[in-house]
């Protein structure tokens, strides 16, 4: 099994979710994260006082898949999340040893 993790623009989440659903994905986990890469932060001003905000809000999307689905899924995410602007994010795949569904105790492919 593989864990596909994507860091994407918050605005892209809906498009990516729809693309994944259309691709047949039955579940996913997202979290709000902050970070920066090529895209830099911004400046906020309160009563003339300036603050540099280095870390930008992003969405981290995680999907567990069987080995053979990982590449295709990555392609779906990349296509749906791409706007062409700096800050569109990254997607990576890492191997997963074991997966267990808490409710039933099923493991591995049956738990995905």
């Amino acid at each position, binding site marked *: 099994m593989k864990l596909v993790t994507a860091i994407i623009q*918050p*605005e892209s*989440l*809906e498009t990516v*979710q*729809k693309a994944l*659903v*259309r691709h*047949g994905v039955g579940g996913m986990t*997202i979290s*709000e994260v902050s970070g920066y890469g090529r895209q830099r932060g911004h400046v906020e001003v309160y009563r003339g006082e300036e603050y540099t905000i280095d870390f930008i*809000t992003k*969405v981290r999307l995680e999907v567990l898949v069987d080995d053979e689905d990982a590449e295709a899924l990555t392609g779906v995410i990349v296509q749906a999340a791409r706007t062409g602007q700096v800050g569109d994010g990254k997607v990576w795949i890492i191997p997963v040893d074991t997966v267990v569904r808490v409710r039933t105790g099923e493991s591995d492919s049956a738990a995905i």
Partner: protein
Amino acid sequence: MLEISAGDTAWVLTSAALVLLMTPGLAFFYGGMVRAKGVLNMMMMSFISMGTIGVLWVLFGYSMAFGNSFGFEVGASRPDGPTYIGLLGNPFDFAGLASLMSPDAAAGTLPALAFVAFQACFAIIAVALVSGAIADRASFGGWTLFTVLWGVLVYFPVAGWVFSFDGFTGEHGGWIANWLGALDFAGGTAIHINAGISALALALVLGPRIGFGTKPMRPHNMTLVMLGAGLLWFGWFGFNAGSALSAGTTAAVAWINTLAATAAAMLGWLIVEKLRDGHPTSLGAASGVVAGLVGITPAAGSVSPVGAIVIGAVAGILCAYAVGLKYKLGYDDSLDVVGVHFVGGMVGTLLIGFLADPASPAGVAGLFYGGGLDQLWRQAVGAIAVAAYAFVASYLIALLIKKTIGWRISPADELSGIDLAEHSEAGYDLSPVYYTNKVQRTLVLSVDDLVEAEKTGASK
């Protein structure tokens, strides 16, 4: 009949609006104190009171409080003649209020409807106060039914006992105001003791929140609490100074007393916290403000400004200790309605017996001003009578609701949050992430939903 006074009318109508603002203020005060998952339900319990009581008051509530009282005569053999014990206003006297639109309909120097408006807002906030005892766990239907039954069976009669003076709106008024002669300027007994003890009855019938006493349940938004306390103080100037029912000296005395007692109570509460816990807290300041406002409510027209400082300080200090009782005794009065409103109301009502100043608008002397114990026992009898009636009646109403439609939401709903379960809403969306889909036939987005969404063009 007294002539209608433009000045008095203007002040009382303004005060009525100030008092109505207290209920949303209370919603902020209470809403900030619960956990984020219950903020909307907490606020809605106050708001629904404006709905139910607002309508009942117009239909027959005002009449039940201020119509000509049913009752009986006592002391027929006394030299000064018999006295009438008024128990309940005739609900049909002013039902629907249409008869009060006439230019001749007056209450003192006010158009009758100005008095109706002012008292309406009192009835609304009285019910809303009770809701603090049952945060996070009461079904909204149960609470809504409670507002109706409590208004009709508890508040309307008790308001008549305390606020309805003979000959003001009906020939016979209520027994506490006229026969007993207990002083309650703006509702220490009728509102705060009444709501405070009723809150205890509800907390006992409903039982504690899951995890009460073992899990931390800290306020989720202290800034809302501070905003609410500020709005309550602002509105309370209408509550107390407006209770003069005139724009003159009495209103001004009540205003200053409302400032003095509240300031002293906040200091008193904070000093207790600093000495006992090491830190003066913002929740302590907000609570001290409310304790002082409650304490001075019955006494605003009968004590001197320095007397008001004494009442406020005692209320602030005592309430700061009283709010800890629920953990010792094991009842979940979630937001301390008993500890602040019942205890604070008792402090103000009883201290009148000691501190009533003959130079004040009420013109009565308490124990410290050479008046002996006469006023003190009247105050005590009034307070105990209201507390006993309200506790028993509220307990029975709460049991009735428990046995019929039920009070508690399911444990699963309580744990995941009452806002979602009862109102289908969340109090806050502070996330910059776009989580929701607008058009969906199933709970989780499926391929079928996508067709639908694209057809209607919804969700972007």
